[in-house]
């Protein structure tokens, strides 16, 4: 009974692209939750307008069919309706703009100093991650490459073209600063469940601030065409409890053979 409950009643969060997926992936950061909420706000108005327009359209087609109604009307003016149909559609974008701008400006606001800086550097066709907060000299940062696991090397249950050998380990519920750049051509670092898509431009450091709210493994893909293997550079972020973060990172400081 407990097993059945566990199998069917636990809700597995969707943090990777699913086949035939229509909606968003589940939010893992407040930013993504804000994006989803804005989407719901806009969708409400969208449905309102859609239903209204469809109704007018169907009604016009139905009642003014040429066989039932061979002589078309010739009304060309109507001051009241013209005023209404100008004012009303200009109010709707105002209602949409309020949550939209609120989200936009709050995304840029950095209210808390980040606790960690992680550099995500795009290459053709892999990623390099640097955790350099702990160096005492220019040499020693924790740096590792992250390659997508080729199809032939996948184990059962792993996602095709999404899994990587070394994941980006981050502590959950911590303010992170991610610096995205590229070493050769433009790439883009995108993790949909965290609401992040940031272009990696060579010669430029783009900063994003996120705070992953739950532990889990989040998948993303390169979002800027970067050559032949653009589809084969993926991103995997693993959020671990804050107290485990230290040991995970120090484990990676010792070179490892085998699993990440």
């Amino acid at each position, binding site marked *: 009974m407990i097993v059945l409950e566990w199998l069917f009643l636990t809700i597995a969060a969707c943090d990777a692209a699913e086949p035939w997926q229509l909606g968003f992936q589940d939010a893992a950061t407040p930013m993504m939750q804000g994006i989803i909420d804005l989407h719901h706000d806009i969708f409400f108005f969208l449905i309102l307008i859609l239903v209204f327009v469809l109704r007018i359209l169907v009604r016009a087609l139905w009642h003014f069919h040429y066989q039932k109604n061979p002589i078309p009307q010739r009304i060309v003016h109507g001051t009241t309706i013209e005023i209404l149909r100008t004012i009303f559609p200009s109010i709707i974008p105002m209602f949409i703009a309020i949550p939209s701008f609120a989200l936009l400006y709050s995304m840029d606001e950095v209210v808390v100093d980040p606790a960690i800086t992680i550099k995500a550097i795009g290459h053709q066709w892999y990623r390099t991650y640097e955790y350099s907060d702990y160096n005492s000299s220019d040499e020693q940062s924790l740096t590792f490459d992250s390659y997508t696991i080729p199809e032939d090397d996948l184990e059962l249950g792993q996602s095709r073209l999404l899994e990587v050998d070394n994941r980006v380990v981050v502590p959950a519920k911590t303010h992170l600063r991610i*610096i995205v750049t590229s070493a050769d051509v433009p790439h883009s670092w995108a993790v949909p469940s965290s609401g992040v898509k940031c272009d990696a431009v060579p010669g*430029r450091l783009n900063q994003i601030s996120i705070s992953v709210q739950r532990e889990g493994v989040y998948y993303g893909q390169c979002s800027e065409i970067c050559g032949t293997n653009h589809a084969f550079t993926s991103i995997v972020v693993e959020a671990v409890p804050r107290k485990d*973060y230290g040991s995970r990172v120090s484990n990676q400081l010792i070179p490892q053979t085998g699993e990440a």
Partner: protein
Amino acid sequence: MAGEIALKTAPADFRFPTTNQTRHCFTRYIEFHRCLAAKGESNECERFAKYYRSLCPGEWVERWNEQRKNGTFPGPL
């Protein structure tokens, strides 16, 4: 090295409030070297060193170190 790692990094700098942090990294690097030139190898300069190491990719730092050695560094050291 296992166990607790103090989670500290370069703070958000109000001089660079936008997404583009290229200048932030460059400025911290220059600040460190100007501090060294002014005060020598002191502990106060180490703070700036930590900041630029957190922000700047390792390749950039290596390239700038090379340029400083060759005297071709394009910045007000």
